[in-house]
């Protein structure tokens, strides 16, 4: 059934009889009555007249019918709506300003709500997502940094049997490459335990998800594709199921494609999902390979689950004591928690901002309606004179307001779709990858409710005010405008409130922008401009021949050095350095325990250990403060030497005689057969140099003590090249790829680990949050300012238009034009001034709260600047329309009468 037919059917159910049907019946009655009268001897002409008087007009009968079946309110409302729309069309300037003021507010509020809905209320597409927990252990010495722990297969099976556990999911990630094509392509693979299909409960877009049978015989060679990977690599081909995909030189059957909303990942969204049983067949996978997620049984409390699982994890700690600190406890974290804390605050603040914007927009509409209402007094007086009740007039005015609000809402919702994506673009890492912004039923309901609320909110005051006039006073003639209009308290209150809220928003924006600028000026200790990091996984693991070629440490070093030299020859490249996985600031290094000579073994402080080559410091422009860097031979050997940063020297050594001291890192050994270590990697090392501090714990966090060692001392099957170029490094990427391919044609590059260091700074949580705040609050406050100015402008111009005659007479009687200007703008200026004072008071009250939430200081200077800017623009928007008051020619003004 088409939509039109459905509407017709519904309409028929509400109004079963048609207009002509009712009218025809009525005519037949009319005629029958008329004939009766004629039969009784009444003359024909007289009979027709009598019948009409007794029964009424046939044309009006349909209205009686609709009244009788209870459609009166409906008819009146639809009349009001039509009238409201006509009024808007007649007055396009007013309509545009009013609708736009609301569209901004409603659009922004809807956008924030849909973001909150997507990110906090409904972020994951998984079945029973609120029961899925991330088990972490909390080191009691560093309680704010939860630690994750991978499990072995048997530990994972123990967890499965625990009482509060409905089902656990085990997963791990791996760099994989698609082979068999012209060039190998690096992808991010996620191994999932084979219960993944039922655990997630997400219906695949095509085919099926992993099933327990996929674990048989050491794991079937099957693969499920991520939506984006499927789009990118297969162009969204729907006939993909059953085809083969060659990964790491082995064929896999494609069994399913996940929907777009599913983007499960570890340190990045997975491109492909594979059965975890295959992991044991893979070369570069450590022994503990199952990162667990736990879905609790329904109605199990977090505390009960923690208590039940703690003994099991204690047992794990006994099996692997080196992975656990001395004092720890288990905590199950709902999977939303990592996003909730900071993102929740960010969104609450932004929501507060847009609500302010909405209130300002509403106030604006109220002012416009009041101002326009003066020109409508006559019309309303006539309506009430011919019998409209006050309630009827209030209702009509409210309906007109709601019409404006709904028109605004339509525009606003359309805009919100785009607006809601803005925070995701500006601060992508603060939000779960799977939060999907879309306009759905709850969001539409929200915006419709919002529109109605706004319409009533801003329409009520003008409606009550305008409906109060008694017709007797209003009708005899138009007001003679030589008498100064009575003071308009309501306008003043609205203007003042608007200005105060605008100031609050502007001050917030000022603070946000200032603290962001401060953040950008924090010395990083290194120079991220024009440096790029390129990640290279060394996994030729599936070809035993190739693997044995780079398995020995010397061969691996030679291979890496060969690539480094080739990259160094690429035109535009000035410096190339080598580092292991964690060498990229502003987060770099791995926390490890160390000992310094002269202190007991019991005392085990921690420092960031960074494995790099001697060129690293030049590439990042980290200055050498004392001593020297290591040379090429020392780099190849890897042992006996170390360089520390300034923070390390001041904290653990007396910085004056740091050189020559000894340190050792007991845990610095090969962990599995894919890592190789130098002969004495965990032995004592002499400190030969101290370098300047470079941010290693985030852009705004204090620099952590760090130890730099030659990367050859412990080598993972992964390296990073840090390349400094003369121009934008990404433009050289193609030639660098070619240089790498010239060493080994099948050497892949990990796209996820290839980015510029400036990008890395921008991705920093605090940096991106501050940038988000400053951009969005900047936009909000600009909008608020525009709205407030439009409000003041329209107030003054309406009142000037109303009082043309008054000003003409004043000028004719010799009033100086400054005085006339003052009379014309007095109310607006005084209320704007009051608003600024109120705003300053509010700022000092809310300032402390805001500063805490934004994690930055609320600056008095930006408040002052905002107040001055606001005052100046308010003055301007008063004077522009008031100009007309002094250009009135008295003769013309009096002609109005």
């Amino acid at each position, binding site marked *: 059934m088409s939509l039109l037919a459905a509407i017709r059917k519904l309409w028929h159910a509400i109004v*079963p009889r048609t207009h002509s049907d009712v009218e*025809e*019946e*009525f005519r*037949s*009655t009319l*005629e*029958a*009555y008329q*004939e009766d009268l004629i039969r009784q001897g009444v003359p024909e002409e007289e009979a027709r007249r009598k019948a009409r008087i*007794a*029964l*009424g007009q046939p044309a009006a*009968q349909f209205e*009686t*019918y609709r*009244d*009788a*079946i*209870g459609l009166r309110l409906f008819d009146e409302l639809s009349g009001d709506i039509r009238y409201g729309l006509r009024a808007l069309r007649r007055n396009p300037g007013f309509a545009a300003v009013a609708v736009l003021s609301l569209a901004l507010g409603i659009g922004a509020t809807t956008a924030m709500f849909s973001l909150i809905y997507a990110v906090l209320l409904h972020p994951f597409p998984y079945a029973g997502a609120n029961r899925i927990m991330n088990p972490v252990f909390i080191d009691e010495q560093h309680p704010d940094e939860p630690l994750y722990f991978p499990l072995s297969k048997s530990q994972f099976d123990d967890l499965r049997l625990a009482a509060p556990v409905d089902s656990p999911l085990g997963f791990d990630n791996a760099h994989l490459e698609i082979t068999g094509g012209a060039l190998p392509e690096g992808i991010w693979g996620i191994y999932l335990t084979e219960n993944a299909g039922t655990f997630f409960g997400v219906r695949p877009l095509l085919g099926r998800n992993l099933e327990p049978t996929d674990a048989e015989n050491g794991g079937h060679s099957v693969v499920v594709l991520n939506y984006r990977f499927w789009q990118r690599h297969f162009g969204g081909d729907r006939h993909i199921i059953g085809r083969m995909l060659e990964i790491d030189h082995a064929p896999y059957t494609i069994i399913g494609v996940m929907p777009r909303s599913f983007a499960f990942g570890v340190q990045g969204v997975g491109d492909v999902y594979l059965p975890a049983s295959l992991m044991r067949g893979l070369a570069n996978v450590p022994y503990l390979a199952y990162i667990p997620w736990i879905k609790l049984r329904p109605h199990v409390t977090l505390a009960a689950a923690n208590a039940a699982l703690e003994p099991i994890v204690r047992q794990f700690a006994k099996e692997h004591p080196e992975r656990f600190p001395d004092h720890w406890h288990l905590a199950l974290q709902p999977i939303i928690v990592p996003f909730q804390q900071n993102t929740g605050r960010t969104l609450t603040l932004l929501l507060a901002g847009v609500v302010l914007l909405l209130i300002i927009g509403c106030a604006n509409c109220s002012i416009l309606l009041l101002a326009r209402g003066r020109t409508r007094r006559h019309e309303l007086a006539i309506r009430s004179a011919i019998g409209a009740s006050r309630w009827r007039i209030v209702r009509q005015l409210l309906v007109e307001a709601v019409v404006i609000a709904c028109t605004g809402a339509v525009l606003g919702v359309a805009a919100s779709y785009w607006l809601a994506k803005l925070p995701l673009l500006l601060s992508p890492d603060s939000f779960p990858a799977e939060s999907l912004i879309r306009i759905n039923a709850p969001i539409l309901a929200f915006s419709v409710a919002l529109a109605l609320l706004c319409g009533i909110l801003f329409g009520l005051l003008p409606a009550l005010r305008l409906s109060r006039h008694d017709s007797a006073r209003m009708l005899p003639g138009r007001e003679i405008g030589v008498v100064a209009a009575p003071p308009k308290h309501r306008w003043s209150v609205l203007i003042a409130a608007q200005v105060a809220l605008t100031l609050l928003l502007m001050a917030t924006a000022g603070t946000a922008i200032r603290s962001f600028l401060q953040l950008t000026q924090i010395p990083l200790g290194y120079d991220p401009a024009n440096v790029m990091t390129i990640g290279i996984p060394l996994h030729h693991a599936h070809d035993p021949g190739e693997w044995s070629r780079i398995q020995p440490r010397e061969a691996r070093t030679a291979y890496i050095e060969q690539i480094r030299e080739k990259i160094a020859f690429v035109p535009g490249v000035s410096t190339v350095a080598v580092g292991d996985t964690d060498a990229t600031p502003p987060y770099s290094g791995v926390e490890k325990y160390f000992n310094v000579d002269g202190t007991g073994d019991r005392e085990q402080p921690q420092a960031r250990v960074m494995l790099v080559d001697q060129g690293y410091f030049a590439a990042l422009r980290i200055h050498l403060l004392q001593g020297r860097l290591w040379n090429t031979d020392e780099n190849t050997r890897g042992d006996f030497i170390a360089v520390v940063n300034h923070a390390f020297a001041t904290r653990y050594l007396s910085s004056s005689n740091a050189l020559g001291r000894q340190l050792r890192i007991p845990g610095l050994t090969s962990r599995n057969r894919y890592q190789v270590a130098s002969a004495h990697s965990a032995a004592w090392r002499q400190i030969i140099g101290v370098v300047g501090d470079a941010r290693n714990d985030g852009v705004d966090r204090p620099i952590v003590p760090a130890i730099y060692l030659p990367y050859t001392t412990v080598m993972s099957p992964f390296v990073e090249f840090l390349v400094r170029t003369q121009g934008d490094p990404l433009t050289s990427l193609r030639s660098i790829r070619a240089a790498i391919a010239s060493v080994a044609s099948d050497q892949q590059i990990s796209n996820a680990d290839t980015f510029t260091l400036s990008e890395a700074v921008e991705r920093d949580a605090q940096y991106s949050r501050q940038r988000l705040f400053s951009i969005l609050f900047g936009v909000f406050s600009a909008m608020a300012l525009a709205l407030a100015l439009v409000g003041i402008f329209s107030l003054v111009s309406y009142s000037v238009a109303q009082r043309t005659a008054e000003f003409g007479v004043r000028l004719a009687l010799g009033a100086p034009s400054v005085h006339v200007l003052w009379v014309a703008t007095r109310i607006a200026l005084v209320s704007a001034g009051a608003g600024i004072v109120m705003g300053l008071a509010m700022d000092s009250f809310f300032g402390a709260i805001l500063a805490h939430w934004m994690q930055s200081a609320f600056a008095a200077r930006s408040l002052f600047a905002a107040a001055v800017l606001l005052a100046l623009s308010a003055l301007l928007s008063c004077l522009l329309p008031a100009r007309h008051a002094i250009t009135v020619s008295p003769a013309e003004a009096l002609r109005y009468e």
Partner: protein
Amino acid sequence: MTKPVELPQGTLEMLILKAVSLGPLHGYGILLRIQQISGERLEILQGSFYTAIYRLEHQGLIKGKWGESENNRRARFYSLTAAGTRQLKAETAKWTDMAAVVAGILAKKADEI
């Protein structure tokens, strides 16, 4: 001529149902029949009369159908639906009960209490 009677609120509907229960009638016919049965003592305002008919039809108590009147004119004939029959029965019982109680009270004399 006897004095005309004014109808209490809500009774017009009941009378229409009764008139229609005696056989299908068009609107004007219903009016005539009520007046005829009442011995011309009821004065019915024509305006409110149609409102009552529309409402009854909308509530599904009577059903209209186009047909031909006694003098070959197209007219809409109303007949009672099943729901209408039930309603009429209930209303009649209610009315008689109420009338009896009220009449009983009014008929009481001081010594009978």
